[in-house]
């Protein structure tokens, strides 16, 4: 055992004692907060009864507030001055052109050109073989075969062109994200000051629902690939920045110091010590950036990104489950291929070092051969039409998948509708409607006071002030009612997420077996782009608010479950043994020891649940959930609603901040425990695989 590990073990005992002592004080304080909350709820209901229907700030779907009209004017002004204002002429337009150029280059290489038959620079055969060879070069034979299979599948599904559009955009976005993210991450990992400045910015970016920045980007960069790529870069760069910085920071101080004592320059230290030792973490960051990019490129179909996302979006809007299913499968396959290849690349960074000289030479020859074949394939597909266009004679898997989607959805709606419909109605009428009525029907200032008091309970004056400011912004932006409807759906989804998180998380935290089985499923679920979550639930529940909520629950649950499971698993075994020795039942051990001691994890799980659920509920606006999500989409597609869409996007930001600040403050309040390892809230999205996994 290493010395630090020993130290940690020794250090745990006093920490445990302290935690137990703190638990005792908390239990005395808890009823106070509980009673306040209950009293608050009672007053709120009373106010709703007495003042219901007044000061509710309603706004009809086609109406705009003066502010929103001014935003429309802003949009008009920008359209009018896009080619005259120096800010656009010399800055924004330049960026748009540069990004467009790169995006177009990738599209032309992989997907289509504007000349003649529109055949891409590298046709079907070339792309497939080249990608397979690259997968082998960075990974291994297994992932190369997987990549080959996936790319052939695109052909079988009849989605080759769409898939290549998406692939090209993902590559272009990842290129930008890495070009920005790696240097920033290195800088943040080597300079404490940069890290301190960058962390809150990244935290902020991560609480933004992906829908929030579509409208502002369109305002500046127009609808088109440039906006899509920029949106994707904004969404996908944070993981690689964070993980690169984290990888550099976790290089032990001893190693750093030893290198310094040998007289390294800053550059030598980075190149020969920090980067090699951080390589695995950096590769994981790149992996997450790929996943985030794929997720966002599909969503960016709303602002002009062609490809699989567009197919899904159009199918969702016309409730064409079969087509959405087929394209959704293609997206999932692409996600799996990215993830497996990147994971294999991460493992390679270790095994490659250790393999002997002769094996390294053999592999180098094999990689060279594979690349040679790829070059040959590229040559073929640039020369012969049969190699340039995807083969046509193959079995039509797309037709099959579409039929399966349609049939299953039809069958479900015909035979299961009593169950699914019953569930949907029960939740909608039993919980969702009353909750929404409470939130949208109360005077805005009553709801505002309630939220502020909750914020004060969680984090005292700072949090309360943040809440007041954000709520004021929401009122000012004029979409209060829609915001409350979205909030109702988000809260409901979050409650379900937390319940799921506690039940499954406790199970996983207590049983290694359960953990081993469930965790890979959760990991896989977290790599799925948000869009595809809507498809199966659309089939089950039709277009409704409930569909969005269920999708949100399933989308947000993996992160929450993992956080709870880690929190439970971190409760020292000695404490659990002590409790068992005192004769506690298993139920008592869970409720009196393990859950209270992982209070911070629970709060963080709630935090992540809220952020993910909000993001997904908003996307659900495309399948009948209405509210803010619908406002955003409508604003993007109809010029006269642009101002409202932009206001809805900004409202999302405010809503995200309130929910995040309150739950983070609650987590901080329950987490001031010495010694206990703190679960990191932000890096848990497809979490770092443990060293052994």
């Amino acid at each position, binding site marked *: 055992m290493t010395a630090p590990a020993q130290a940690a073990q020794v250090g745990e005992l006093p920490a445990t004692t302290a935690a137990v002592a703190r638990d005792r004080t908390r239990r005395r304080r808890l009823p106070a907060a509980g009673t306040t909350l209950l009293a608050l709820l009672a007053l709120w209901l009373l106010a709703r009864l007495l003042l219901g229907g007044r000061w509710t700030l309603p706004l009809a779907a086609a109406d705009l507030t003066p502010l929103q009209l001014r935003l429309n004017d802003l949009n008009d002004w920008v359209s009018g001055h896009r080619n005259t204002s120096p800010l656009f002429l010399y800055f924004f337009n330049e960026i748009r052109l540069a990004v467009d150029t790169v995006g177009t280059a990738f599209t032309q290489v992989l997907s289509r050109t504007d000349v003649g038959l529109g055949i891409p620079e590298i046709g079907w055969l070339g792309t497939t073989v080249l990608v397979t060879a690259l997968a082998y070069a960075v990974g291994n034979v297994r992932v190369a075969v997987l990549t080959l299979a996936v790319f052939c599948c695109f052909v079988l599904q009849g989605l080759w062109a769409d898939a290549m559009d998406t692939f090209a955009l993902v590559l272009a976005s990842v290129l930008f994200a890495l070009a920005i993210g790696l240097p920033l991450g290195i800088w943040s990992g080597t300079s404490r000051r940069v890290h301190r400045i960058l962390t809150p910015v990244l935290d902020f970016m991560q609480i933004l629902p992906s829908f929030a920045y579509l409208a502002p980007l369109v305002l500046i960069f127009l609808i088109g690939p440039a906006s899509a790529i920029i949106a994707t870069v904004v969404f996908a760069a944070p993981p690689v920045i964070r993980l690169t910085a984290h990888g550099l920071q976790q290089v*032990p101080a*001893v190693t750093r*110091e030893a290198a310094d004592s*040998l007289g390294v320059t800053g550059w030598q230290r980075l190149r020969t*010590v920090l980067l090699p*030792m951080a390589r695995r973490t950096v590769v994981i960051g790149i992996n997450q950036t790929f996943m985030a990019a794929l997720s966002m490129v599909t969503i960016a179909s709303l602002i002009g990104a062609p490809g699989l996302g567009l197919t899904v979006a159009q199918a969702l809007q016309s409730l064409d489950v079969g087509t959405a299913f087929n394209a959704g499968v293609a997206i999932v396959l692409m996600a799996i291929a990215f993830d497996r290849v990147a994971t294999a690349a991460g493992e390679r960074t270790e095994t490659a070092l250790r393999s002997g000289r002769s094996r390294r030479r053999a592999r180098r020859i094999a990689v060279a051969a594979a690349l040679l074949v790829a070059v040959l394939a590229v040559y073929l597909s640039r020369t012969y039409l049969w190699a340039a266009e995807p083969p046509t004679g193959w079995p039509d898997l797309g037709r099959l998948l579409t039929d399966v989607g349609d049939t299953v959805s039809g069958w479900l709606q015909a035979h299961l509708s009593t169950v699914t419909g019953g569930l949907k109605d029960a939740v909608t009428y039993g919980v969702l409607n009353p909750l929404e009525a409470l939130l949208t029907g109360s005077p805005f200032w009553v709801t505002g006071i309630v939220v502020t008091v909750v914020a004060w309970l969680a984090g005292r004056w700072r949090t309360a002030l943040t809440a007041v400011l954000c709520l004021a912004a929401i009122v000012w932006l004029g979409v209060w009612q829609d915001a409350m409807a979205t909030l109702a759906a988000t809260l409901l989804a979050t409650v379900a997420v937390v319940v799921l998180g506690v039940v499954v998380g406790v199970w996983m935290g207590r049983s290694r077996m359960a953990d081993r089985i469930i965790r890979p499923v959760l990991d896989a679920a977290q790599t799925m782009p948000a869009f595809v979550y809507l498809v199966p639930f659309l089939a089950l529940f039709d277009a409704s608010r409930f569909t969005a909520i269920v999708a949100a629950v399933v989308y947000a649950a993996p992160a929450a479950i993992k956080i709870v499971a880690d929190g439970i698993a971190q409760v020292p075994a000695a404490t659990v043994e002590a409790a068992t020795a005192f004769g506690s039942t298993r139920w008592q051990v869970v409720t009196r020891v393990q859950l209270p001691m992982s209070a911070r994890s629970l709060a963080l799980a709630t935090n992540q649940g809220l952020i993910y659920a909000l993001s997904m509920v908003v996307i659900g606006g495309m399948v009948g959930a209405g509210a803010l999500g619908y406002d955003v989409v409508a604003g993007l597609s109809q010029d006269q609603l642009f101002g409202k869409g932009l206001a809805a996007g900004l409202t999302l930001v405010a809503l995200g901040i309130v929910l995040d600040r309150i739950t983070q403050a609650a987590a901080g309040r329950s987490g001031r425990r010495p010694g206990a390892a703190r679960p990191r809230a932000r890096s848990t999205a497809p979490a770092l695989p443990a060293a052994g996994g």
Partner: protein
Amino acid sequence: MTAAAHPLPRTAGRTAPGRPATADGTPDFSVRSLWKVFGHRPDRIPGDRSLDGLTGPEVLARTGCLPAVRDMSFDVARGEVFVVMGLSGSGKSTLVRCLTRLVEPTAGRVLLEGQDLTALPPARLRDVRRNRISMVFQHFGLLPHRTVLNNVGYGLQVRGVGRAERNRRAAEVVDLVGLSGYEQRFPDQLSGGMQQRVGLARALAGDPDVLVFDEPFSALDPLIRRDMQAEVIRLHRDMGKTMLFITHDLSEALRLGDRILIMRHGELVQIGTGDELVGAPADDYVADFVADVPRADVLTLRWIARPDDPPDAAGAATLPADTVVRAAIPVVSGSAGPVRVVDGTGTDQRTLGWVGRDDVLALVAGAGRPPHRRRADAGDAATATESAAIEPAAATGAPA
């Protein structure tokens, strides 16, 4: 400055068997009024006279700043093995890190052959780290992604030595520390002792003038530790490099060190050879430190010789003053009367005093501590203070 009086640094090396008299008297590096203070606005602490009487923790409580190294001054002679000792947290690591500015000192100077390291620009400082002073760390600090050979050659690579030359030199040093055959292994495939040999080899590869060891063997088990100590003694005998060695193991200090510096709360308490610390501890802290040492193994006859002439001196056996008491037991117990203890050789030889059977027995039995300042030749030299050993110009020239 510490209030305690310190014996003058002895300029002659300890003449243990098989070891050359290494120190030739010229200081290799000197530390002058060195301070390292951790905390907010640390530079206000060194000049603050009102904190003079307080211990480190008291200063921390009063000012919020922790003086990890406080006004340290000492010289290390060329070829000497200089050991720094102290309890955990007394500032040993901080002190040695200040030497090459891995930790930037708050005040004071470090002179390497007269060159002030604290004033060097970064590029020159890197030169010193590359060519002059190398360190060995308690937790090794090896690069996990490099083989043993590449770890050892790392310092050379940093200097810009070409691959072939680097590998040749690294292989030599790997052989020197007894790791031949393990060149292509990775650090995590080696035992702790072997990893520290790699650390040692890495430090040796650059052929530095000074080697600094920060508790290099604390993480190793006792058997391997003895092995490694023997290794260091052998290297020192073969190469004669100046070594600064940190440990909190007194037996290790006595085994390796020509002189030992004892620190407490960042302050210097005493500097001296092993027998000086054991025979004349400056205060109770040092006395406690050395309480468990078997005195007969450390003290020489010099410490117990009585100056007064015995009644029948004729025909008494003669022993050199530097004989360790334990080694003298057969002679003393075999002779009828007291034994004559002499200093010097040939014509310079003079009688220091006499040692009888009872004197030896009293020491071996550990009956009480030998009275302070009974060293036969120590007289006035032992009462000189440490500050007197430092030329005034250097002491006043240090930044406040």
